């Protein structure tokens, strides 16, 4: 399992780079590194479905970020040295929240089964009866399209709402359309 720890360290370093570096395009590339490390970790965790989806989704995320950054501005002009006064309260609140969260999560994780041996109460049924009930050899596809089909219906709705939302937000305002049509 040493590869898992190396990849986790790479992922944390890339995340720190992504939020601190001054050039925005480099931050998008660092986010891509985080995503690809997660994709390789999905392969190590024996989840090939998720690895395929994570790789292609990560590529498209970096392409979308690059499309927005290249059309607007490249560098981050808000980073100035020193501690500002308006940053004190958010930082203190964040540190408090972080410590409380770490303590509570530590106590919760001590009650979960240890890493590497899940309980699998429901999944045992799905694995044993999946092939006879649905006829699909891929158990994950059988789960998302047959046993838990409502979740996929909800996901289809969310994707539709996101596409409609983006097309509405990026629609040209009425006055500009008249201007450019007059010019063309």
């Amino acid at each position, binding site marked *: 399992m040493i590869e898992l720890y190396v990849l986790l360290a790479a992922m944390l370093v890339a995340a720190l780079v992504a939020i601190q570096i001054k050039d925005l395009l480099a931050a998008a590339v660092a986010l891509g590194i985080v995503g690809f490390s997660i994709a390789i970790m999905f392969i190590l965790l024996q989840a090939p479905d998720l690895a395929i989806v994570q790789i292609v989704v990560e590529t*498209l995320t970096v392409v979308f970020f690059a499309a927005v950054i290249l059309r607007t501005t490249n560098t981050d002009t808000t980073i100035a040295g020193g501690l500002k006064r308006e940053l004190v309260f958010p930082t203190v609140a964040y540190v408090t929240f972080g410590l409380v969260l770490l303590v509570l999560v530590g106590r919760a994780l001590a009650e979960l089964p240890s890493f590497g041996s899940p309980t699998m109460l429901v999944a045992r049924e799905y694995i044993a009866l999946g092939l006879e009930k649905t006829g699909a050899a891929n158990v994950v596809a*059988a789960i998302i399209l047959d046993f838990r089909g409502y979740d996929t*219906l909800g996901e289809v709705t969310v994707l539709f709402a996101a596409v409609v939302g983006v097309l509405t937000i990026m629609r040209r305002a009425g006055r500009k359309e008249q201007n450019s049509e007059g010019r063309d």
Partner: protein
Amino acid sequence: MRGMSSIVQQIARLLAGVLFLFGTYIVLHGHLTPGGGFAGGVLIAASFILVSLAFGSVEQTERNSYTLSSVVESLGGVLFVSLALAGYVAGTFFFQNASIYGTGNPLQLLSGGIILPANIAIGIKVGAGLFAIFLALGASRFVMKD
């Protein structure tokens, strides 16, 4: 974004067909191998994005292009919901799968009842939807940076 150099255009011309075919393969074999509708749909969208980036047609995209993409995406959604209603029509529950439409032989391509058409519907929907989002982010008439 005027379109890239001729080397990139040659490679894009070769790769776009392979990407589209591979995405369709992942969608169609979703019930046998890892992948399924979502992964294949995003790959199909990526092949369209590659063509539109390499041949420089992102900026000159007409409004018709992203109207067409969003219409195709809605058709994919309608297909998925009508497949879910098919169980209702046949007299049992909403989304009921294999007991009415037969499972076929396991490990063949035509098995799994409703899972194969549902994967195709999801692939169409995700592919067209993500291409429409890319066109809106990259090609909308927008005040360029000075």
